[in-house]
């Protein structure tokens, strides 16, 4: 009888990388549906197009490395990266913008470092920032929500994507843009003059944030990640906004609620900063990691030059993660005072 040589443990749990990634993809569904409902099929087209480019790129690079590309693609991590990036891109972005963004994410964000598990930065955010710096016009061309403008149908959408000449037709300022561009109006006046803005973050935006929150809570329930980073980020952002809110003058940074439910807040909290590879490792580390991102988002939103700040804040903290890890090593069993209670 031939005997198998395997070392312990011989039993293993149910968790698998591909299942984790699948859960993340599933959790984006509510948010994507809401975005599609309010802004038309642009986001969906982004995701499909981006996914195809991403799979092709990952397949090619891994094959060139001489490893089995099917194994790499089947862990679904590349689809997660491209999907997250494509949700963040404006709907009706031209096809080349999507392609460049996805290729940057997969190649520069992930594969140059050695592929899954080795990337120090969040790959989707790498792609996003490169696009933001290189193509600021296209990147700020967000669509107006349903109710304020005609939401394009599928045919129009495809035309925009593949023959992007009529870009102005579907461009509108996002609530965060409005807040940023505002110089003289009281917040309440701004609300009155800008139809797309509400005190809860803006038409469509509030709902999308809510949907991503729902997806995030489901991921928490599935134990894909722990609560530490997302909750720390949201709390820090809310606390900063409370401190910076003066009741609504033109200098005011917007209320805590406004910040929690506008822009990419919930999406960032549950889908971006929870990327395990590029975040801090321990729970304590993740608390600090999340809180600093929350604070940075507020600072960049109110003081910086870009309307939303998630990508920059995340990349900066990705860079800091190893330092956070160094200072937040958990207390190992038996290393407290002799015979002490557990600390």
């Amino acid at each position: 009888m031939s005997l198998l040589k395997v070392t312990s443990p011989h039993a293993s749990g149910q968790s698998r990388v591909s299942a984790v990634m699948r859960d993340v993809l599933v959790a984006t569904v509510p948010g994507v549906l809401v975005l599609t409902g309010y802004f038309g099929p642009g986001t969906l087209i982004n995701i499909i197009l981006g996914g195809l480019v991403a799979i092709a790129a990952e397949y090619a690079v891994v094959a060139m490395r001489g490893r089995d590309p099917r194994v790499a693609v089947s862990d679904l991590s590349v689809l997660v990266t491209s999907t997250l990036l494509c949700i963040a891109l404006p709907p009706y972005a031209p096809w080349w913008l999507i392609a460049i963004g996805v290729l940057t994410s997969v190649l520069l964000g992930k594969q140059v470092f050695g592929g899954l598990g080795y990337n120090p930065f969040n790959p989707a955010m790498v792609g996003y920032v490169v696009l933001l710096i290189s193509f600021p016009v296209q990147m700020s061309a967000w669509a107006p929500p349903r109710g304020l403008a005609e939401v394009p149908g599928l045919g129009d959408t495809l035309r925009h994507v593949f023959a992007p000449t009529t870009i102005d037709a579907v461009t509108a300022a996002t609530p965060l843009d409005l807040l940023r561009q505002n110089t003289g109006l009281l917040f309440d006046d701004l609300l009155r003059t800008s139809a797309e803005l509400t005190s809860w973050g803006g038409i469509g935006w509030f709902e999308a944030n809510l949907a991503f929150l729902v997806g995030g809570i489901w991921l928490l329930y599935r134990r894909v990640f722990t609560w530490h980073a997302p909750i720390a980020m949201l709390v820090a952002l809310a606390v900063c906004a409370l401190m910076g809110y003066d009741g609504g003058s033109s200098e005011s940074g917007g209320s805590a609620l406004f910040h929690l439910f506008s822009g990419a807040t919930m999406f960032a909290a549950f889908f971006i900063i929870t990327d395990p590879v590029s975040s801090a490792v321990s729970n304590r580390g993740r608390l600090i990691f999340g809180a600093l991102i929350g604070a940075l988002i507020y600072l960049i939103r109110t003081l910086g030059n870009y309307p939303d700040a998630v990508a920059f804040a995340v990349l900066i903290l990705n860079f800091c993660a190893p330092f956070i890890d160094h200072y937040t090593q958990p207390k190992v069993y038996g290393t407290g005072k002799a015979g002490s209670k557990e600390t």
Partner: protein
Amino acid sequence: MRTVHDIHGGIHPPERKALSRPGELTDAPIPPQLVMPLRQHLGVPAQPTVEVGDTVLGDQQIAAAQGVMSVPVHAPTSGTVVAIESRPIAHASGLEDQCIVIETDGHHRCLDAVGTDDWRALDAITLVERIREAGIAGMGGAGFPTAVKLSPGPERPIETLLINGTECEPYITADDTLMQCHADELIEGAQILAHVVSADAILIGIEDNKPGAIAAVEAAIARADADIELATFPTKYPSGGEKQIIEILTGQQVPSGGIPADIGLVCVNPGTAVAAKRAIIDGKPLTHRIVTLTGEALKNPQNVSACLGTPITALMAHAGLNAIAPQRVIHGGPMMGFAVSNLQAPITKITNCLLAPTATELPVPEPAKPCIRCGHCAEACPASLLPQQLYWYARAKDQEQLAEHRLFDCIECGACAYVCPSQIPLVQYYRAAKGQIRDSEQEKRRSDNSRGRFEARQARLETEAAAREAKRAARKAAAQSKADAEGADPIQAAIERAKARKADQDKEPEQTS
């Protein structure tokens, strides 16, 4: 009611304990040949006291302890010594080791046993010696010589004797069965051990998934009217780790690198306590143990009391192994056991379980994927380590960071690898890294020693040279002044010089080291 403390991490793998029907115990048949390894414990192998051709009786010592970290070996039954040679043994490394091979005669004639009921009249030293002579080593898995454990020394006063009846590994029910079938002996053994270490209290801890054992031990405590506390606590792996159960029941942590006695505890397995009772009261050495034979590849999973030295293959046949190649037979449990590399290897004092799973039951691990740093491993680690960082540094062979992240506090429980979504064999990396660090430390000690010797010699040679130089100068000066005084008699001066040289040589034999 004792407050039960929670430990960090832990997992809940499927228990599969009912498979081997805990609480039912039969004797395994005596095989035609018994293979008795000289080292069934942690430490120095025993020294054979029989020769090939000798007839031996049951309970007769066949190998004697060599020093403190050693325990003797006894014949489980009567027969003839047919070989003393290297045989495959059940060990993670898959090596061979020296064994005494006994051909059994089937008569099971044993030595007359001399025990005592009046053990309270005996002092600790005598009792410890009898326990050592009975060949008792920890029966929970590591096989640490019990006599050593029972001698923590006067600077470590013992408050509590803790019987660890947790048996938290899936599948294994040997201790559960022992506690159900031999509860009275367990209580007596615990009292003896407490007497030996002068413990004030006896505490028995059992996980709450063993109602049979809990009821049996409770009843035995009542029957004996003994002052023994029974504590139960929620099932979680690895609560049965010595450090873990101590934290669960006392809220205290054993200091890193220390032993339980540092915080006033001695912790033993129920099997060890029963063996101590039999050694002292019945005068019987350790020759049998309870082994769980389990796994879906067996037709009749069960618990047996088997002679130490029984070949694994005999027990597998006894339980009806349905041999489908390639088969894995695991010595120990699914979390910490190792795959046996040769079924001819015998069971020893530490064999609590032989697990023969089918390929669907415990599938061979998939190829590992990269670590995605999800942190599930850190959540599961009972030692509060960061397994993902240890993995990273183990691969980078970064010994400094491994020390920083306290690799040696890892108890190799496997909880981290169990939850890992990338199916990384983490424990394998930690074992390898520990081995490498031990090797390089030994290397360093050796070179430190030789460097130390070299430097000391160098220093000695230098001082000697300096002393010679000083003497030479002094002699020269003396000769000079003498010559000056005596009006330069060259012959006399030469004689003087020769005399001085001779005296110097007598004083300073040539250094040869």
